[in-house]
Structure formats: structure tokens, C-alpha cells
């Protein structure tokens, strides 16, 4: 205990936080890219065109059926043999993005399919074009419905980022490994690591919750109070 508070923390906590910063960068960039890619994957997989649907289905299947760590190792160590050289950081981003996109495409697909048929019919019956129906009615509702799930995936992603330490990205867990190889004090170090991960996830969860409430249509009206219920239908 004494050692933890008066030696390990002041000595190594700042260095671990530097790693945590990289973890946050990885998460945010992968989340952004993965969400975009996942969205387009979902729309593509719902397309009537089989030539578009089939390869995308195959991609999602392959990504979901292999471990993330294997994907990361492949991207970092095997792609250079094919002439594609990525820095560790961007290899990590690539792996996390592809992985997340595959999972999110399922979330978005479910949310799009779950939008009430009547909404589509109402839009069509006003004379909207198929693109307008999608952009003005289906997508906004599906996005709202998938938001809570999206938040869950972000928190999972924060922690999945620890896997990129295997391809030598200097994020939180790798910094911890460095500290331990210096001090042989694995217990104190891992406790600090756990605390940092907990703080990051906890804060993210609060922020996501706040965004959800803020984006829920009926909560945006200040004049009457409504119970803060979420998500009647949609993503699972």
C-alpha cells in the first residue's frame, strides 16, 4: 500500500496516462471510421443487388469469425509482404476499424430493418423519391435506435485497444509492460492500468448517455417534462 501510493503512483502514473491518451486516440479514430464504414456496409448489404451484397456479406462473415488479434497481426506483419506498409498506429486503426465496422453493420442493418413499415409508406405516399425516403425518414430513425448499442460498442472498443499493444503501439497496456519491465512491480502497475481503463469507460458511458438523452426527440423540448425513456423499438 505504502509503496503503491508513495512510489508507484507518482513515479509511473503520468507515463501510463500518456499511453492512455494513445488509447483514446485509437478509440476515437477507429470509432469514427468504423461507424462510417459500418453504415455503408449495412446499406450495401440491404441492397437488392446481389453482386454488391454477396462480397460484403462475405467480408462481415470473415471478420466476425476470426479473432481481432489475428487480424491485427495479419495487417501489421503480413500486409507489408504484399507491399502495404502501415505504421503500428495506423495498422492498429485499420484492424480496429474493420472489426468494428463488421459488427456495427449488423447493428445498423437491424435498426434499419426495424424502422416501422408505416414510416416508409407515409414518406412514399407524400411523393418522396426512394433516396429521400431513406435519407429523411429511415436513416434518422435507425440512427437514433442504434445509438445505445453504438455506445456499448465504443466502451468495448476502448478496451479492445489493449490488443494493439501486441503490434507495438505505445498505448496504455504497452506502457504498463514497459513500466513492469523496469520495476518488476506488476501488481501495482496493473492496478493503475485497471483504474485508468475504468475511468475512461465510466466517463465515456456518462457522455454517451448524455448524448442519447440529448438526441432523443421528445427530450429536446424543454417546455414539457417527459419521462426519459429510451428506444422503443429498434436495435438489439
Amino acid at each position: 500500500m505504502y509503496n503503491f501510493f508513495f512510489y508507484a503512483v507518482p513515479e509511473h502514473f503520468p507515463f501510463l496516462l500518456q499511453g492512455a491518451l494513445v488509447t483514446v486516440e485509437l478509440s476515437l479514430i477507429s470509432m469514427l471510421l468504423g461507424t462510417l464504414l459500418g453504415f455503408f456496409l449495412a446499406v450495401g448489404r440491404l441492397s437488392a443487388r446481389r453482386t454488391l451484397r454477396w462480397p460484403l456479406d462475405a467480408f462481415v462473415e470473415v471478420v466476425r469469425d476470426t479473432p481481432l488479434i489475428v487480424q491485427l497481426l495479419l495487417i501489421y506483419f503480413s500486409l507489408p509482404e504484399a507491399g502495404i506498409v502501415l505504421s503500428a498506429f495506423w495498422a492498429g486503426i485499420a484492424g480496429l476499424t474493420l472489426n468494428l465496422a463488421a459488427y456495427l453493420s449488423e447493428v445498423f442493418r437491424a435498426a434499419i430493418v426495424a424502422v416501422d413499415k408505416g414510416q416508409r409508406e407515409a414518406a412514399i405516399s407524400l411523393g418522396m423519391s426512394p433516396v429521400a425516403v431513406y435519407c429523411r425518414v429511415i436513416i434518422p430513425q435507425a440512427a437514433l435506435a442504434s445509438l445505445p448499442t453504438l455506445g456499448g460498442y465504443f466502451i468495448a472498443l476502448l478496451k479492445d485497444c489493449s490488443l494493439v499493444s501486441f503490434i507495438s503501439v505505445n498505448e496504455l497496456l504497452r506502457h504498463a509492460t514497459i513500466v513492469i519491465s523496469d520495476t518488476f512491480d506488476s501488481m501495482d502497475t496493473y492496478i493503475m492500468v485497471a483504474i485508468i481503463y475504468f475511468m475512461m469507460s465510466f466517463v465515456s458511458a456518462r457522455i454517451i448517455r448524455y448524448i442519447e438523452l440529448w438526441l432523443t426527440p421528445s427530450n429536446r423540448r424543454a417546455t414539457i417534462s417527459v419521462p426519459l425513456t429510451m428506444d422503443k423499438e429498434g436495435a438489439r
Partner: protein
Amino acid sequence: MTEPRPPVLMVRQLRKTFQGNAVLKGVDLSLHEGEIACLIGPSGTGKSTILRCLNFLEQPEGGEITFFGQTLCAEGGNSNIFRIAPPRILQAARARMPMVFQHFNLFSHRTVMENVVEGQVVVLRRGRAEARDRARDCLARVGMLERADFYPDQLSGGQKQRVAIARALAMSPALILFDEPTSALDPQLVQEVQGVIRDLSAEGMTMLIVTHEMRFVRSIAHTVHFCEGGRIAESGSAADIFGPNAPPRIQTFMEVAHG
């Protein structure tokens, strides 16, 4: 209705099957400007399907639909190939005959005002300010202006349906299709929606209404079409259909309908 102008909507031999079941076996129907026509008849006789084929929410499979002289679908020539007009023409036609649904189908992510503005801006390309003015007008006509900033899930069924009617009105329609507009409402809310439709009839709006509310039909309809077996079995004025000399099958239906 009196002068012999060409009908707003003309339907000939409209046919539709669902999984091999013939639902519409040749429906003939015409509707004139200012006319209020009601489709009545037992459940499952294709009343709603007729409506949904008119705006191509369902694809008809045969017959002809003409709307303001524009052919929306037809069987042409010697080969008798059934053709449907290209999407852009169908979209333009839909905008002129919006539909009011049994389950309202208000856009749940938009406020009452935005619901009424949406079609005007996206489809009719009106400016936002103009669209909002028009929306305010329409909402006032259905008595929902003070709820303009509410979301649909904060409204009662009757209020939702009134907003749905305002949304249709905002499109400056030539014809409004009503698909059982009061069937999903509690009995005490039926009146408020019927009242709005009645106000529209007083203003000369052309309407095609599918409904089971016989008293309402009797009080509002110029023409009543009785559907049975995928066809329009009888047509006539409300007085004909509801009078003592009504065809026997209608009398039978009425007895059942009034239980």
C-alpha cells in the same frame, strides 16, 4: 359533381393478386372533383388494397389508372402488356393524392410542425418559410396549431390523425385517400377526426374514404361503393345504398355491420 367534367381519377379493371390469391378482380371506379366517395364492404374484400394500388404502395398487376388525364398504369396495344408509369410520374401523382393511414404513420422523429413541413420542402420544393406558413394554416384547420412543437408520441390518437390530415392538406392535394382513418381510435376520439373530415367536405375537398363507420358514410358520402369479392359490387348515392330499396346484399351487410 353536377357538370360533366372529366373525372379526377379513373380506374378500369384494376387487378391485383397476393401470392396467387386474386384480391382485386377488376375494379372500376371514377371520382370527380369535389366528390366524396366511400368504399365500404366486408373485411378482406380489398378496399384498402384498392386505395394502396391507386398510389402504388402496392403494384397493381392489370387494368388502368388515370389521374388528371395522366395514365399511371395501363394495358396497351395488341400485345396487352401491362405498363406502369416511370417513378417520377408516380411520385408526382402521389404528392397530389396523399394518403391518411389507419395507424397515422406520423414521422416519429419529427415534431408536428416538421411533419407537416417535410413533404412540402422535400417533394414540392417549397421554401422553408413558405412551407411553415402553409403548415400553420393546415394545422389551424385541424385544430392542432397549439401542438405544433410536440412530438407524435406526445399526442393522442385523434390528435395524431388530425396532424396526419394536416400533413396531407399541406401538399395542396387534388384528392386525399383515407384508409380507415378512425379504425384505430378510441370511440370518443372518432368524432374529432370525423369532424375534421366533415370540415374538409364543406370546403369541397375531393376524398376517397375506406371506412366501416356506416353512420359517417351516410352523412358525408356523395357516392358509396360497396366492395365484395374483389370487385365493386354496387355503387350509388348514399340515399340509394342506405335507403329502403337498397340491393339485398347490401342490406345483409348492413345488418351484420350494425350487429
